[in-house]
């Protein structure tokens, strides 16, 4: 029999982690019941399907009332309508802001406008994540971005205080916000093979080394790159002039570690490699170059290496010797230049290694 009213309300808001997860995942209430049924809730508890359905509906009603508050997590603690115990509150927020890498990967580099929100069904199809969940993730990212975009200070810290997210999740959002702020090109076809964790990794290392150093000043902002540093990178051009010396040092160092074939190949192609790497550094101060950083890395570095089928280890060895040998050269005696080279190469090494899926 269909009940007109069937509600269960408790003084402390009850959150069932399982049902909540289903809700967050964007299941409709009937889908949730089916899912629970498949997981054997009925066998475990001896409840009827009808009871499970009524329970799910109760939870869904509560969650939909809560959703508005979840958009502003600090309000959740302050509001009086629901009495939620702190640990439950944490669970609510954490799960609501949790995201799928695959979905966010699709959103990277796109404008977070309502026009794109409509296109989410493609994302949903591609990622096999329910449309509702995609929308939630889209909205979350957009909301977080809007709030912290123009805020001073560490972006991760800002996200943590404004959305009460745990460190790890806040970092992930931080990376998304950072990528969006710089407007890195991420959606070109050649970049499609990169996953969100790849970008997360790269963004993390860029944020760690290339942004302004946290010197306690209120203007400190880690979503902006250090302009001076980028300009300083131009000076690395000198390495191209000393290419021979550099090549010599690198080849000497790598010879014992490389196969003969690879060594030959390195020997003949070093020029183009170093041109790619140093050239990139010299042009980073142009924002167009900066935006297409990942594309450049793929097109000018990774693709040639892949063609000659370097192993991951080969790449690591090459990059580390390439970096080390440059330091040994006289041209990098100057402390500032040396410092720039270090800053540049740590990030580039880390990114390349991550992006080289081999």
């Amino acid at each position, binding site marked *: 029999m269909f009940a*007109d009213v069937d*509600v*269960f309300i408790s003084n402390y808001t009850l959150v069932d982690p399982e049902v909540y997860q289903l809700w967050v995942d964007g299941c409709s209430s009937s889908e949730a019941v089916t899912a629970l049924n498949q997981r054997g809730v009925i066998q475990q508890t001896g409840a009827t399907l009808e009871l499970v359905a009524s329970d799910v509906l109760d939870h869904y009603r*509560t969650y939909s009332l809560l959703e508005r508050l979840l958009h502003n997590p600090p309000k959740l603690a302050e509001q009086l*309508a*629901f*009495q939620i115990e702190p640990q439950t509150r944490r669970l609510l927020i954490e799960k609501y802001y949790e995201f799928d890498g695959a979905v966010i990967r699709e959103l990277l580099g796109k404008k977070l406008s309502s026009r794109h929100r409509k296109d989410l069904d493609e994302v949903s199809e591609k990622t096999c994540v329910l449309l509702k969940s995609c929308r939630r993730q889209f909205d979350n990212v957009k909301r977080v971005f809007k709030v912290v975009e123009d805020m001073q200070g560490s972006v991760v810290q800002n996200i943590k205080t404004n959305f009460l997210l745990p460190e790890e999740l806040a970092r992930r959002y931080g990376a998304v916000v950072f990528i969006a702020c710089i407007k890195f090109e991420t959606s070109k076809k050649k970049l499609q093979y990169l996953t969100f964790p790849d970008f997360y990794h790269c963004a993390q290392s860029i944020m760690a080394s290339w942004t302004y150093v946290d010197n306690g000043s209120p203007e400190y902002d880690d979503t902006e790159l250090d302009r001076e540093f980028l300009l300083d990178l131009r000076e690395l051009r000198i390495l191209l002039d000393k290419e021979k010396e550099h090549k010599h040092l690198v080849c000497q160092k790598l010879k014992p570690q490389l196969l003969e074939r690879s060594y030959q190949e390195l020997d003949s192609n070093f020029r183009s490699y170093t041109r790619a790497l140093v050239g990139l550094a010299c042009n980073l101060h142009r924002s167009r170059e900066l935006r297409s950083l990942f594309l450049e890395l793929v097109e000018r570095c990774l693709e040639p290496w892949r063609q000659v089928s370097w192993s991951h280890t080969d790449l690591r060895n090459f990059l580390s010797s390439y970096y080390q040998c440059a330091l040994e050269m006289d041209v990098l005696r100057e402390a500032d230049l040396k410092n720039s080279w270090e800053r540049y190469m740590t990030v580039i090494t880390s990114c390349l290694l991550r992006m080289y899926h081999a």
Partner: protein
Amino acid sequence: MPGKVKVKILAGRNLPVMDRSSDTTDAYVEVKLGNTTYKTDVCRKSLNPQWNSEWYRYEVDDSELQDEPLQIRLMDHDTYSANDAIGKVYLDLNPLLLPASPAPVKSSWNSENTTTTSTSLKGGSVMSGWIPVFDTMHGIRGEVNIIVKVELFSDFNKFRQSSCGVQFFCSPVIPQGYHAQVVHGFVEELVVNDDPEYQWIDKIRTPRASNEARQTLFFKLSGEVQRKIGLKALDLGGNAVIGYNQCFDLEGESGIVVRGIGTAVTLTKIQEISVQPPLPFDITAIDDRQQQQQQQQLFSGGEEERQLTGSPQQARPVSSTSSKISPSPAKLSNLPAIHRRSSDSDLSITPKGSYMKRNSLTGSDRSSVMGGHLRQGPAVVRPSMNQESLDMMEYPFLTMSKYPPGFIMHLGGTVSSRSVKLLERITNLEEPETRDAWWTEIRMEVRSHARALGCNVVLGYSENTSICDDVCVLSASGTAAVINLQFSTNVEQDTSGQHLVSRVHMHNKELMTTSLDRTDFEREKTTPQKGDFTLPFMQGSKVRHLSDGYELDPVSTCSVCHIPYSECSVPFRVTMLKCAICRRGKVPDVLFTTIELPEGVSTTGKGCFLQAYVCRPKRDCRGELNAKEISDGLPFLEYELHRLLINKLKVKGMNSIFGLKVQVSIGEKMLVGLATGTAVYLTPLPMPPVPKVSADNTWADDKKLTEIQKLLQDTVKKNREVYQLKPLIELEFQSNGRIPASDTEESDDELPDLDLATGNKDTCVLEVDDAEDVDVISLLIDPHPPEGFYVVNTETVPGLDDQEIVKNLQMFTQVWRAKIPTGQPTSVFSKHFHRLLQSVYFKLRRMVPCALCDLQFGVELPEPDELQISVLGMALGLGEPERPSSKLKKKTVVSSTSKEAIKKADECELIFNLDEDHVAPENPAAAPLQVQLGCPRPHSPLRIKIPQSKPHHTPPRERYGVDMTPLSYVPGGKIERYLGNLNFFFIRESTCIREGGGLSGFVHSFVTEVLAIVRAHVTALGGNAMVAYFMSECVLYHNPHKNQGQCLINVGGDVVYVSYYSED
């Protein structure tokens, strides 16, 4: 005499957008009390306005203060059109009119808690905080931060109209931390008014205006009733009303009736005694002499030793009293130390055997026992209630459901009365004579029923109505009982009697245990003692038993169950048997009561929830015909309900019901009766027989019949196992249904009467004549709650011996409503009740082990073919009992059979009373343990499942937010202060039901909002919990065609401040 009210509006937050064009609001506030209104400035373009207004002052008469709510209305300023209402806050000023309670004395174990909160709680007359702004059309719309102060000039004018300072408690018990000096008796009041919803003006005003007019009126009427009841309490000499219950009868066209009933008492606060040793070694440090002095102080001061109460073994717990002991570790608080001391001092007075130390009962207590027997000296039972006042009282009714031990002497049984009335428009609002006359009629009937049972009072008294169109059924019910009357409170210590009396106690104990153990050894041991000391008394008591019902009975554990009336004088046939414990008193074969299980009554096994539901179709007619139809149907309904209840009880294998609530609802096409209660096996009462199935000749299928019989038998057997009723049954069976082995000569010859075979056979025969009857039998068999759930409708779970209620988990409300096709058998309906319970189990499945207490069902027939059921209950976490030794534990349960337990009965066992279900008795090492109890276990306070063999809950160290509970206690915590009672009537209407998630969504959000508002008020008053929470009315109108719905909810309870055990 005036009082001064000062109001300051600080700020608002989260206000709704009222101006769509600019997405903001220009909010201001109107503050209204009586006819005076103040306005704040307009705070432009802000959803979080800061008004920080001046103090608005009102000088009002104190009676007005009691009647009028402070109304705070948030408005949106509009330059060109009329200002729009955002929402309203109603503040009941009554809690602020209470006398400021003295600063709480910090006791060692909660000092931290006290200090942290006491700053925010100076005086009782300030209320401040964020309160949700409620609009009847939109629900909660933001919050407003306010401060309200009340300064009251006391008025001692004899003819005053106000009753400020009379404290009201919804809790149906003597409040924790208080001691009832005198129970004055029943107070009631009733006011009537037109319902604004039905006035002509309603046709031209907006729904919002109409709803608000109603809400305001409900508030005023509620205040008026409470004020008038307070006046009556003052007239009686009381200073408080407990067990206060207020109802709104929405009679539709004929108006609104607001009724209040309660019990007037004189309460005194038990001082948190400073002599309490904060540290364990204090006790040892105090020498006997000192202790004695302290003891004298204690008792001369009229303070009571709370710990003395509640011992199942205490014969005459005269020190009865006061605070009901919370069935939680809290009760252990500080008292054992005192206890100990007093007993020591006893020792110093009279040399006695070690275990007679239970004479820790006070001096006055002793003499009371004497007095009782000799019928000369005054019997002392506090809370006192004297014969005189009882006679004077128009209605000897008490509305509490729980009484101090020793207060109740005998229970007669449930008495109730119903009356069907035709409603007419109330013409003269000032003189609500008709309604008064109706209730008078009913009360008189209840009174006469009680008298017919030889009882002097009605306990656990309640009144209800059910209205359908213009017909109203009024019901009143309670438990007829004989209570202990008192003539004076202070009696000199009778040292001469002491010696003897102490033996009486001892004897009682032995007697009780023997009856349980039934071992020859024990019997031999007790008999000489009895001969020596108690026989003189016993003989006296034997004579008086039936002739003169107001005497004290020495055996407390069973005397409560003895019938108070003479066998031949009752106007109905009852089966009476000898008491299974003392073999002297007569007991009925079943006992139904509306009260909680009194402490100290011996029970076997566990209690369980019992429910019977009867539905009776009726013709759909109007007016007088309708009234007649209902009136004709009611007796059948009640009979059916009773029969079902009795049979279900038997199937459960139990013999009594406590907390019985019978609700009759009338609808257009149906009459519905719902009875809920907690079934208990009272040890003194005989074991119920297994119902027999019989059929007349027309029923051919013998096989089927035996099947049914077998099913019944199996069920009874299963139930006995589940509820641990087994040991006694085995004994019973061994002796062929006879209660085995007599223990005294006197009762020996009367034993044949106990043969159950001859007694009441006809009552346990179920006739099966057709398929419908078979159906009925299947109704008798209720499914058991799942593992880990204990379900009752009383405040504690009787007989829960291996576990203990340690914390509050969840208060829950359930509302269910569906269309019911007419003409279906009752079984279909009871399915719905089961389903509701099932869904509670399912929802709370992660909280086991848990007890569901105070389960309240409400059933309504809002439409001809619709049934609405609401459930309110409390889930309580069960944990390990505190004591390390299981031996001690066993003794708390009456069914303790080991004789070594008795032998090993060391002094502490006798001193520390063992509350039947929950008290963790002290160890011999009382002092160190006490501290240990005060400090929390090493577990985390959070609900963490500890990986042990069995999951269990641990007591809380603090509680987040505001705890709401329908119970009158907070397990694991102690109620430090009562901050007043609240009673709200909310109305919510919506014209977009479909968009808001249907009717379910509408009700869901409304109930959530109501709880939020109540919590905010509790917090603003400085409380952190609400006890005795109720939701008495939940009326829902629905008009699907207009996509419109309206819901009315009446909630309330006592605001309290609870402290939990702190770390040290």
